[in-house]
């Protein structure tokens, strides 16, 4: 029996990376611009998104292009949303990703044909929430990275929406509207200009009692982000998600080089293809993980994230 293949979803920092990762086997991309989308590896204005769609349509694999419209929106931005979504629809993106209901409101008004992926990151936590947003037009729920395998599988069993989970890379663990690095520099008597705290500048935090873990931190116009100290890597156990029928597997490329992301996409592509060709005979191939390990930053552990954790509260 040949199984239905889930989508392998990647991010891209540029059109070049998008082409590279499409060739490496990505089935879909989330791209966008920071005015509307949060925590993106690179800026894709409407023109670049249009170009990405053209590249995708012209390529053999025809990857899907999703636009990230997942910021927490303020009053000023919601005024711009209808026109923005209208343009995205004209350009022909395959879906938009959102986590603020203002985007749903704007889509109903300006672009009702757009497919909607609900992604509120850490607060997308149950099948019941999936159904809620499904009834309001979403075709996909992107699950919180803080759920475990059992919970993910149950969501998939109980909702009719497509289910997306992140299988590789870092996750956002804290988002503040405050400019916390600037505030701290002020406390140290330094001017904010003395330190470039933007994405990609390599700033990290170390908690006083956890000296072996580095938590990347960066600032942009919308606040301060703290990121996980480890990278999720589910390549060894991908079959569990494949068996569960998860619809989309995301490889997060934030703060990684195109070469790293290419390696990771190739590894997951190989695993997904191998499983689809022969689910019963599927075996994890250690060379997939070995390839990732060769390019992995040694200060960042590859982990199972929360897939096998029991949390308390």
């Amino acid at each position, binding site marked *: 029996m040949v199984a239905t293949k889930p989508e392998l979803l990647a991010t891209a920092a540029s059109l070049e990376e998008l082409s590279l990762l499409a060739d490496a086997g990505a089935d879909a991309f989330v791209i966008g611009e920071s005015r509307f989308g949060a925590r993106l590896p690179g800026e894709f204005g409407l023109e670049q998104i249009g170009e990405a769609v053209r590249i995708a349509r012209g390529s053999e694999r025809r990857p899907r292009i999703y636009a990230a419209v997942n910021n*927490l*929106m*303020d*009053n000023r*931005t*919601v005024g711009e*949303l209808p026109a923005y979504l209208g343009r995205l629809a004209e350009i022909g993106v395959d879906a938009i990703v959102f986590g*603020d*209901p*203002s985007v749903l*409101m*704007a889509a109903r008004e300006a672009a009702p044909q757009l497919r909607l992926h609900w992604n509120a*990151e*850490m*607060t997308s*936590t*149950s*099948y*019941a*929430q999936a*159904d*809620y*947003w499904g009834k309001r037009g979403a075709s996909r729920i992107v699950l*919180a990275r*803080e759920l475990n395998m059992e*919970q993910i599988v149950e*969501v998939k069993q*109980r909702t009719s929406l497509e289910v997306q989970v992140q299988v590789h890379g870092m996750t956002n*663990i*804290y*988002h*503040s*509207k*405050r*400019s*916390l690095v*600037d*505030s*701290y*520099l002020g*406390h*140290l008597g330094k001017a904010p200009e003395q*330190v470039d705290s933007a994405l990609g500048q*390599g*700033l990290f*935090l*170390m*908690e*006083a009692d956890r000296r072996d873990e580095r*938590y990347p*931190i960066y600032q942009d116009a919308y606040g*301060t982000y*703290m990121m*996980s100290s480890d990278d999720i890597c589910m390549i060894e156990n991908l079959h569990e998600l494949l068996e569960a029928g998860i619809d989309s597997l995301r490889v997060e490329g934030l703060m990684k080089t195109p070469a790293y992301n290419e390696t990771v996409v190739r590894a997951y592509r190989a695993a997904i293809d191998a499983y689809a060709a022969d689910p019963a005979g599927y075996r994890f191939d250690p060379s997939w993980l070995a390839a990732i390990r060769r390019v992995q930053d040694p200060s960042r552990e590859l982990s199972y994230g*929360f897939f096998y*954790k*029991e*949390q*308390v*509260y």
Partner: protein
Amino acid sequence: MGMTMNKPRYQGKRYRLDRPELLAPAGNLEKLKFAVHYGADAVYIGGQKYGLRSGADNFSFEEMREGVEFAARYGAKVFVATNIYAHNEDIDGLEAYLRKLEEVGIAAIIAADPAIVETAQRVAPGLEVHLSTQQSVLNWRTVQFWKEEGLPRVVLARETSLEEIAEIKSHVDIEIEAFIHGAMCSSFSGRCVLSNHFTDRDSNRGGCCQSCRWKYDLYVDGDTIAEGEEQMFTMGSKDLCMIRHIPELIDVGVDSFKIEGRMKSLHYVATIVNAYRQAIDAYFADPDGYELRPEWLEEVHKAANRPLNTGFFFDTPGTEDHIYEPEEKAAPYDFAGVVLEYDEQTGLAVVQQRNHFKPGQEIEFFGPGGTFFKQTVDELRDREGNRLDAARHPLQEIVLRVAEPVRPMDMMRKRIR
């Protein structure tokens, strides 16, 4: 304060309430009673499930029923925070729980998870559903979405400014609730899983261990830029306090003034509610002649646990709004007791002990509406008339002479330095 007073005031509307509601936290039944007695129009509590303060006492249904009855005597309402983001396994039992809340007379739930919102609307239509601040609502379109979903009230994200509230109010006729006092997440509430990562405790189901207040080294170019403990990075925020800005909050049309703190003490809740109650009432009694009274501010500082600021109402918080140095207790006072009885003939009061006190100590009594006096502790006796060298035992009933008349539920604090 001068800076902000020069700006034009935003004029909004309260659509359903003729004056704003003062909404207070109550971690247990006693705190509920005191919050209401000291002037809260409504209190919010946590039940045994679905709330974000798993460390608080939290209410049984029986206690809720008693709390609702007590509050009703003052014309006050009781809300229940059901503000977790539910996981699959939390959904079972939700319907029964919500029906039970409706049955015991709860007026509203405060919910963030749309699954809880929808379930409440379906199975417990007598409960109002208020959208929690955990949904991080910052804009009018999102407020409109929730209004169209049938919610009568939205609690805004603490990141919303007065100007933004005014704009929201101009677009949507819905009750707006805003935090006006208390501790703040430095992140968007709900958009933080530091506890999950550091301690495997789920912050969005009540397990937050306040990792934002821990100490961190910030590394730039591979090196830490801190020099010593007091130079370390933290995300910890000062606490919100809007007592100086009651007129602006009223004029912008905030419908419910919310005080944070289901984990806070009885003394804290009574003191803070008392101060805001007086300020709101003074404004409505004479809007043009309104002035901030220094004693309100003094009272607030006697309960404050941390340095205070105005959050995001006027501007985005900066260096001065975060706590990098070790935290100091703001005021040299401690809660000492609660008045149970008073005898006008003898001038003696019975006080239930809540903290050690002894003869010679400076104490002060306060009650609802701003009654207040100071005195020194004179002779102490127990109920049987035995003289005591100190009030040592929690909940012990102590007889002492008071300098002015007091009433049951008045509170007593002592000076500690």
